[in-house]
């Protein structure tokens, strides 16, 4: 049992309130992603779990035990830093085994557990290297190795993939998800990238200005975003928003429709507009349409669409795919 529970936690730096009162439960064994724009307090939350940051008020429990004032090393957690934070003068093996060595574990036991972790992460051949002799992806693996040898109850990741190139990032996403399946420990993962959140999480917590906008399964957030912020943050390309008269006509003060839920036609539809530009990706087409009285709308269509710039087109939302908001809250079901 290693759930993580925030109860009435607040965090401020001097007079600046970064996290107003926050309650959150991270389920045992879950892969929970904290996602939100830069500066919304994700790292602060993660670092409070780790004990690298004191809470201003409230309590944090891990597996039912109050750890609010415990040392980082006594919380049963391990953390992977964005910079990897590998000890530059130590070999890969020493980096991975450092915590075990400090805990007084016998040398051969340390070596055995380091070897086990290295095998999982395909680091066996690199154990005697120094970090500067490794590629970015290999360093990343060492940082993960350092986390798994400690057999923590909770893994913490702070934007661990943002220093990698796109291809490696996609590969590491899969590896991390597989690692979670294999180990089964609770994982808390911070990112500003909603794609990482959608692909890896079994639960997403969307943060905005230190507050929880919405928490839930990725598909629930996609299907029924609770606030305009979540609606705009989750999904790519970004959701289209209608305001004013156009929204009122559909029953809200703000109405959203995802680009993949719009049909484009040369003949008829709810909204009329002019095609400004189209991007052809082969598997899909992104059309940018200027709609009168609404503004620019993005349409995502499977496969090829034969439309020409400046052509008059009609857009219609699919059945049941409108997201209606009133006073900042979702009112459509």
């Amino acid at each position, binding site marked *: 049992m290693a759930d993580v529970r925030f109860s009435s936690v607040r965090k401020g730096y001097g007079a600046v309130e970064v996290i107003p009162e926050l309650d959150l439960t991270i389920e045992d064994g879950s892969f929970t992603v904290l996602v939100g724009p830069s500066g919304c307090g994700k790292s602060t939350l993660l670092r409070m779990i*780790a*004990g*690298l940051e004191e809470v201003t008020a409230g309590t944090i429990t891990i597996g039912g035990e109050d750890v609010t004032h415990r*040392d*980082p*090393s*006594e919380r049963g*957690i*391990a*953390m992977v*830093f964005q*910079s990897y*934070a*590998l*000890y*530059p*003068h*130590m070999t890969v093996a020493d980096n991975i085994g*450092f*915590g075990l060595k*400090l*805990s007084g574990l016998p040398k051969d036991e340390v070596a055995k557990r380091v070897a086990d972790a290295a095998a999982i992460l395909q680091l066996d051949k690199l154990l005697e290297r120094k970090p500067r002799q490794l590629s970015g992806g290999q360093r990343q693996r060492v940082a993960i190795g*350092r986390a798994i040898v400690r057999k923590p109850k909770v893994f913490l990741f702070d934007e661990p993939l943002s220093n990698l190139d796109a291809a490696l990032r996609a590969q590491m996403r899969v590896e991390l998800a597989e690692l979670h399946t294999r180990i089964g420990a609770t994982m808390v993962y911070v990112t500003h990238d909603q794609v990482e959140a959608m692909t890896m999480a079994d639960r997403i917590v969307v943060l905005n200005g230190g507050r929880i906008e919405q928490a839930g399964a990725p598909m629930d957030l996609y299907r029924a975003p609770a606030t305009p912020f979540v609606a705009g943050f989750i999904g790519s390309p970004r959701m289209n928003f209608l305001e004013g008269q156009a929204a009122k006509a559909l029953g809200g003060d703000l109405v959203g429709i995802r680009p993949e839920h719009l049909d484009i036609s040369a003949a008829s539809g709810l909204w009329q507009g002019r095609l400004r530009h189209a991007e052809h990706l082969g598997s899909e087409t992104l059309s940018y349409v200027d709609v009168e009285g609404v503004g620019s709308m993005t349409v995502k269509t499977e496969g090829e669409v034969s439309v020409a710039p400046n052509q008059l087109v009609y857009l219609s939302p699919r059945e049941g795919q409108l997201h209606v908001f009133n006073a900042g809250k979702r009112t459509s079901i």
Partner: protein
Amino acid sequence: MSIKSRSQRQELAMLLPAVIFLIALIVVPFALSIWFSFTDQRLVPRPIPTKVIGFTNYLRMFDDPLFWQAIWNTVLFALLVVPFQLAISLGAALILNAAIPFRSVFRAIAILPLLLPMTVIVAIWAVLFRIPNGPLNAAYQWFAGSGNYVDWIGNPSTAMVSIVVLSAWATFPYQMLIYLAGLQDIPQDLYEAAKLDGAKSWQRFRYVTWPGLRNVNIFLLIITTIGALKLFTQVNILTKGGPNGATTTIIQYLFQQGYATQKVGYASAVAVFFFLAVTAIALLQRRFLKNEGEA
């Protein structure tokens, strides 16, 4: 081929001014010293022309017990002052790098000695060392009872240590500033990772700070050693090499021979020897420390 040589010629042309300065200010005087060291050149030219006398200056130098005492004193001073001064510099840097209140005020105070010329510092310490009732002796009398005093710089057994303490105090802020820069270069993440690994504060020093300061340490060790080997001003003002030769250093000896007794040829031989010795020591330190780290 021709393009390469043209760009090389351009590079050489741009280096020229610096090369000329180096030659004029360093190479020429040094070459002159080497030349003088083989002659009986005097400070004030005499009617008899200067003669080449071969290795006579060197032989005489190696025969002079005071020369060997000067070497021993200089080495002793370096062995005492380098670890002592680096330790207080690092200690001060660690304190000033921590989140203590009024840090910038303390930082400003700590570098004050750097702003004072060495002669002024020596004058201040001359007052501190005063007998029988200078401030240091006043403190001493607290423990030893009134009427007792130590002749800090007049007593052969305390003179060297007194010079060591004074010198360390006078120049430690320089090393401290470099240590501070080195400390700030160590990523904060490493300390946090070490905390998560369960490292106590001295272990974080041992495994993060100390290895992180490796290059700074090598640099400071070499620079401070060279500085120590050049010890002169303090000694020349305070003790004139005394008492009884206990604080005569190589430069002090060189100065005595070159100016006081006007034997420029002889002093040049000392200078050449000193230059070769310092270069050898610096190279050895570098060699030794590099290999140790690479292994």
